[in-house]
């Protein structure tokens, strides 16, 4: 499953990495994701989830995507239930602590229709980091002795050749595609990320291609006035899609917090009959709307303003 280093290098060489415009529609961007691809998802839990892109991939009826993410929230439920993925590699999987255990995740995993491949948080981060560094593994000191490590088959223990200490080695993860939502980027894909970065930068540099969705597109001049704020460089990016509220109903740092009542509603909808509830949700919010604007209309202006008011308040201190 690990990609050879020479293949990784060849794939990178083959990409057009020139300073070129790559703005496209969200529907066009879905053509950069192939069935069966390994897809890394940026953000963490209910934060900077690239929901617009996931929404479009579900509408495009992709299949067999092998997903990885630091921590998986509702988007994992929706990817299982829509059938675009039956395999998610992550460290934690449920909407969020306050909403309890995801009933949808339970329904799919306990019936063995889908797999939740559990790794520790840091091991996932180090796997992306190894991928970003162009090395085949990273040594680390956690997970040893636990059943988290015990049930994984692509781990190795090794005695350090310098000190003799026992180390755990985790393999590099170089996803085919990384989906990352940012506050702003230019038309070439130079991305600035405010606030929490999560694992997004390692993930972007590890991936074979990056699809950026962004709250807004700014000029290249603006990027060049503060290049120290650029977190993902254009050379790594294949597509730029401008999608306001592209993480809704999750949070986008400094812009909007999670849409809490929508998330409460989702939790109660999927509580008693998870599969029927999530099917209804997909029908209403994913297959029904003609475009992202209509999806946002369904979430509702009141919710959007409330989330925005809370989101911007982080700047008020």
């Amino acid at each position, binding site marked *: 499953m690990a990609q050879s280093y020479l293949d990784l290098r060849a794939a990178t060489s083959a990409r057009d990495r020139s300073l070129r415009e790559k703005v496209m529609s969200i529907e066009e961007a879905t053509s950069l994701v192939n069935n069966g691809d390994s897809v890394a998802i940026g953000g963490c839990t209910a934060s900077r989830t690239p929901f617009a892109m996931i929404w479009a991939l579900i509408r495009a009826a992709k299949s067999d995507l092998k997903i990885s993410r630091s921590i998986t929230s509702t988007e994992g439920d929706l990817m299982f239930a829509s059938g675009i993925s039956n395999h998610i590699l992550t460290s934690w999987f449920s909407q969020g602590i306050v909403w309890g255990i995801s009933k949808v995740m339970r329904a799919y995993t306990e019936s063995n229709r889908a797999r939740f491949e559990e790794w520790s948080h840091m091991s996932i*981060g180090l796997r992306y980091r190894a991928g970003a560094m162009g090395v085949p593994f990273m040594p680390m000191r956690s997970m040893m*002795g*636990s059943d988290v490590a015990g049930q994984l088959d692509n781990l190795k223990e090794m005695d350090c050749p310098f000190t003799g200490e026992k180390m755990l080695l985790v393999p590099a993860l170089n996803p085919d595609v990384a989906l990352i939502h940012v506050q702003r980027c230019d038309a070439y894909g130079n991305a600035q990320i405010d606030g929490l970065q*999560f694992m997004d930068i390692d993930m972007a540099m590890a991936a074979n291609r990056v699809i950026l969705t962004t709250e807004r597109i700014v000029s290249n001049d603006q990027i060049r006035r503060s290049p120290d704020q650029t977190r993902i460089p254009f050379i790594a990016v294949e597509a730029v899609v401008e999608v306001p509220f592209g993480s809704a109903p999750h949070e986008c740092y400094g812009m909007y917090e999670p849409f809490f009542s929508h998330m409460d509603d989702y939790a109660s909808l999927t509580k008693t009959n998870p599969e029927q509830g999530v099917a209804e949700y997909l029908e209403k919010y994913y297959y029904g709307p003609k475009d992202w604007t209509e999806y946002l209309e369904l979430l509702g202006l009141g919710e959007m303003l409330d989330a925005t008011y809370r989101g911007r308040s982080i700047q008020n201190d």
Partner: protein
Amino acid sequence: MTNQSDYTSAELLAVMSARQLVDGQTVFAGVGIPLLAATLTQRLQSPGLTILFEGGVLGPFVVPGELPPTTNEQRCTRRANMILAITDVLLLLQRGYVDIGFMGGAEIDRYGNLNSSILGDPENPKIRLPGTGGGNDISSLTQMIVTMKHEKRRFVEKVDFITSPGFLDGGSSRKDSGLVTGGMHRVITDLAIMGFDEKTKSMKVEALHPGVTAEQVRDNTGFDIHIDDDLMVTESPTIKELEVLRHLDPEQLYTA
């Protein structure tokens, strides 16, 4: 003075946990009771306590009434000293900058191993739980305080699945597995405070909360637990502690 009916068991947990922290420590906190307790002690007796969140936050200031729903939202970053990548904040544990990992638990065993992954046969789970998150890394790499409800079904002889390692099979097994630092320090429940025997690494009761008997602890523990002869009794939560706690969580999101 307060008496037991004046506070909820979650409030008792938060207060008792808060008292375990020492000024100047760097504490990796989960949301819920751990975060409340860390914030409580910060406000009352340990202004020099530094909180870390696994979302990538170093030294935030939690705003009363705006407790973050997870460790990964912007609310966690209020007035923080630094925001860093998830991998880098977790690497602070490995480097040795963290004194205490502080989390809740669903199921714990005699040797302090925690399960938050799978109930039942791991090959064929009865209940799939949300998983480790950073729990495994934190408990692999630093001293742990775990706070949870004291119930027989939660305190078991052997967990179905070791998500976050305690002392594994006891004795030196943790060290032998490659985990050369850290380990379970304290388990705080609504009944008692537990530590671990230095040699066997088996859980033992060190102090009871006011009005609790050793018998009650035995009855609510699913394994034969050692009870210290010179058992201490904890002091009831003070009015001051409860006031600050209620100010932090006015809607009782975590303390109901």
